[in-house]
């Protein structure tokens, strides 16, 4: 009889199959597992889309779906991960691959960049004199 530890291991393996692309464990219907994998990924993608509609707008629908599938399998959601962080990581992953023009900067970061540039210039001028 399977005890708690064995069940925990089996549940962990099932999640690696459903979320991280590992092979289907023995005894499961592979076709149904494939449907579940898609359903879980679609659900995760819908949340990311809701939080960052700008990303799908920038990529176009088809590319968004394709790239999210790649990202989602490479980075299965970890216990404790927040949806908003997932959306940010996806955007950063896209930027690192050159798929997005530039990383999303909140307006206040853009302002500090401008001020930062101004301060650097001021420092340079005062150091000369």
């Amino acid at each position: 009889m399977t005890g708690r530890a064995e069940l925990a291991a089996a549940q962990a393996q099932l999640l690696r199959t459903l979320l991280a692309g590992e092979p289907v464990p023995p005894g499961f219907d592979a076709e149904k597992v494939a449907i579940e994998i898609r359903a879980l990924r679609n659900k995760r993608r819908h949340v990311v889309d809701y939080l960052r509609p700008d990303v799908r707008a920038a990529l176009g629908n088809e590319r968004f779906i394709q790239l999210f599938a790649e990202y989602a399998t490479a980075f299965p959601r970890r216990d404790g991960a927040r949806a908003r962080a997932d959306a940010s990581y996806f955007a950063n992953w896209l930027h690192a691959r050159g798929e997005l023009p530039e990383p999303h900067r909140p307006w206040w970061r853009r302002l500090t960049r401008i001020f930062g540039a101004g301060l650097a210039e001021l420092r340079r001028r005062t150091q000369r004199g």
Partner: protein
Amino acid sequence: MDAADAEVDAVASQTLGLGIGWRPEIDLTVARLPDLDWVEVVSENICPGQLPPALEQLRARGLPVLPHAVSLSLGGAEPLDTSRVEALAAVAAALDAPLASDHVCFVRAGGLDSGHLLPVPRTRAALAVLTANVTVAQSITGVPFALENIAALIEWPGAEMSEAHFLAELTDRTGCQLIIDLANLYANARNLGTDPERFLDDIPLERIAYVHVAGGVERGGAYHDTHTHPVPAGVLDLLTALRERHEPPGVLLERDGDYPPDAEITAELASIRARL
């Protein structure tokens, strides 16, 4: 019948009536519904110290507000995350709710989070895990507790009993109640070939706290319980099938998005009430 049985029966038969899943997007709609008896809220979306005014108003009108959790992962075999149970307990207390609930499922394992309600094996081992976790959850929440059946696209190998018998055993061992989701039952009939009438024959009907109905859609080779479509006739037919066997204390319409006009929601509630 001893005192404990009498108490269980008294709690199990608390009449709720016809309700709807409360969502902030439809707070005005819900406030205006003419014939509503109660609401259910997703507990993870509620901050106990900051109840939405719309919910406070419903409570002030005397409508019960029941918290329904989705993240406790009570079927998970790793150590139970009791902080999530405590969060549900706090919401139940803030709402002065007569009942709290979650699902017969697991959500997380091996450091990964499915973000979804996944089935557990229908085995004695899984039953032992659920029994232990539900017992702990009940003691933490301190209010009557109900477990809901889920829709599954996959099945574990090595099932030792039917879903109905699994639920019956669970209620027997823990004293918990059941939320019977007829839309999930309908989805499983379509996707897994299960027999919903046999299920209704075999579950302990007196343990039903209330019933869920919801809409869905056929897509990509499976029926998906989306909660964003009208309730199909097949689901309402299951409500009739249940009603022929037992009068459920409550029925709840779940809608999570793509909200139709008020008149359509009102009509859908009326069509549910007509089956009771």
